[in-house]
Structures are given as C-alpha cells and as structure tokens.
C-alpha cells in the first residue's frame, strides 16, 4: 500500500495544493484501486449502481461508500465490488448483441388478450 501523506498545520495550504497549480492530486488516488458501489434504497428493492470510488480494500470501500453515497439517507444496504472484477460488454459489438432483438416482436407477450384481472402484467 503506497499512500502519500502530506503534513499540514493549521491554516497552512502548501503551494502545490493551492488554486491554479498544475499539481495532480489524482496521482495519489490512482495508487488505490477503484470500486463500484451498489446501494439498496429500501428493503425489497434491488441494489442499484450509484457510482464508484477509490479505496485501499473492501472494508475501506464500504466505509467510503457509506460516507459518500448514503449521508443523505439514500440507502439501507451497500455492496462494493472492485471494478476490475466487472466484465463489461464492448460498445462496438452492440450491433450483433442487441439489434437482432429489434425485429422479433413475437418474443414479447403482446399478442395475447389478457383478462382484466391480470392487466398489470
């Protein structure tokens, strides 16, 4: 774990951190892996992806997620997963992946006449 910590005293903003500097604070962040955060807003609902953050490990990711994403009462449950474990589909393959479904409307159950009682199906 390689964390850069700078010592500050009261009222002391070092020059490299002050406005207009070219110092990249993001460099510190890149030494910690990225985590994807999923929050369940209410019991009974699904966890939804809300964003990502940096953390050294799962325990820290959990606490960061609590502080960053639930401080305005957004959730009752948190999942964290390291971003590298998510396999994403390639946007360039959208054609072969999704378009074949467009003209197959018979895959939707819209050709049945449903009794009134089940109209919310």
């Amino acid at each position, binding site marked *: *774990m390689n964390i850069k910590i700078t010592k500050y005293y009261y009222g002391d903003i070092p020059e490299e951190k002050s406005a207009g500097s070219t110092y990249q604070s993001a460099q510190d962040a890149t030494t910690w892996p990225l985590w994807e955060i999923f929050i369940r807003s209410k019991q009974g609902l699904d966890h939804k992806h809300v964003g990502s953050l940096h953390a050294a490990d799962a325990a820290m990711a959990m606490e*960061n997620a609590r502080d960053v994403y639930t401080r305005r009462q957004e959730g009752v449950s948190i999942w964290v997963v390291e971003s590298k474990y998510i396999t994403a589909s390639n946007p360039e393959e959208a054609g072969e992946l999704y378009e074949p479904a467009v003209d197959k409307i018979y895959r939707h159950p819209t050709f049945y006449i449903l009794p009134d009682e089940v109209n919310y199906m």
Partner: protein
Amino acid sequence: MGIIMENRLTNFILSIADTTLILAQRNAEWCGHGPILEQDIAITNISLDLLGQSRNFYQYAAQIIGNNATEDSLAYLRTEREFKNLLLVEQPNGDWGQTILRQYLFSQYQYLLFEQLQNNADEQLAAICTKALKEIKYHVRWSSEWVVRLGDGTAESKERMLNAIDELWSYTGEMFIPAEYEKEMGIDFNALQNNWSAKVKALFTEATLSVPENIYMQSGGKQGIHTEHLGLILTELQYVQRAYPNSQW
C-alpha cells in the same frame, strides 16, 4: 433543582458542547485538504456529526441558563477562559495520522462516557446522549480502522503513528480527572478509565503500537485553562459574530 446543582449541570453540559464544537472545527479544517476525496468527505462528515451534537448541548444549556442565552451566544460570544473543552481536541491536526489518532482517542472516550450518560437522572441529557451514540459508534469504527491501517502499515505510516502518540498522549489523562462540576453527575470515572484503557490497549496491540507508560499528563481544559491553540481556533470561529455583532445569515 438547587442553584449549585443547576450551575454544575450547566457547566457540565457546556463542557461537552465545547469539546464537540472544537473538534468539529478542527476536523472541518480538512475540508478540501483531505489526503483523498473519499477521506475528505469522511472527516468532514464526522465534523458535521460533532457540530450537530454540540448544538444539542448548547441548546439545552441555553434553556437552563435562560436570560436570552442562545446556542449562538454560547458558541460565539464566550471567551477562551470560559471554554471548558478537553485539551486533546484543540491540538493541531498535524498529519492525517495525528488527526485520526486524536479522533480515535476521543471517540472511544466519548462512546464510553455517553453509554453511562444515557442512563443519567437528567432525562434530557440522557436523551441527547442516546441519540449521539450511533454516530459515535461509527466514529470509533472508522478511526479504529485507520489506526490499525497506519500503525500496521508501512515503515513511514508507523513512524507517523508513533509521532502522533508522542504528540497527543499527555492530553488523554485529563479525560478521567473529574472537574468540580462533574463530580455529582453520576459518572463512574474509574470504570470509564479502565474500559477506555482496555479498549485502547487492544486496538494498539492489533496496530502493533504500544501504549506509553508513566507520561506526565496535562490538564486544565475542563477549568478553562488551555493550550495556546484554542485562542487561534476561537479567533477564526467567532470572527464574524465579533466583527458584525448580531448578524444573521
């Protein structure tokens, strides 16, 4: 309630209000300067929790004092010698290690103290403490993890934690020496100290740090005798009310 008892209760409530306010102000100094965005948010969150707690105590104190006292007049118009906060919380932020160690040493104490106070004979005091306990439990958890992370981390992080212990340890003894106004508040200071010491020792062991022994302990904060840092904090904290009396948002 007799006048002496009432004065004691007021002073006791003010001492907790001052301690939480000053630590809130110290932690707020990190806003925009945290080592990483997520931790910047975490420490300022804790600052806001403490500020909320201090408001509850100031409001209650103002209610007992009467005489047009308000939470604002108590926070913004009292002088350094009237503040009764612990010396520990007015100490400079130092580096991240020093900030999180100060948070841990205080939060662990505050948790055990409030656990006792939630059964206090004064129902309003008990209710305020009960409400704060959930927040404090999280502060203990968050700061504990950091103590272990840095204590048992790299050679540099350990060095910084050892420095932080050197800087702060002499301000911890005061927590367990009851001030005159604390003596009849139904607090078992021996139990408080024993439980705190056991918790700190267990955590330090996990963090491969050791608890200093035979250190001279500073005191005076509870009586209004402070280190040089409090004056500087109040200068900034009270500036607007002093420069523009009675100004409102």
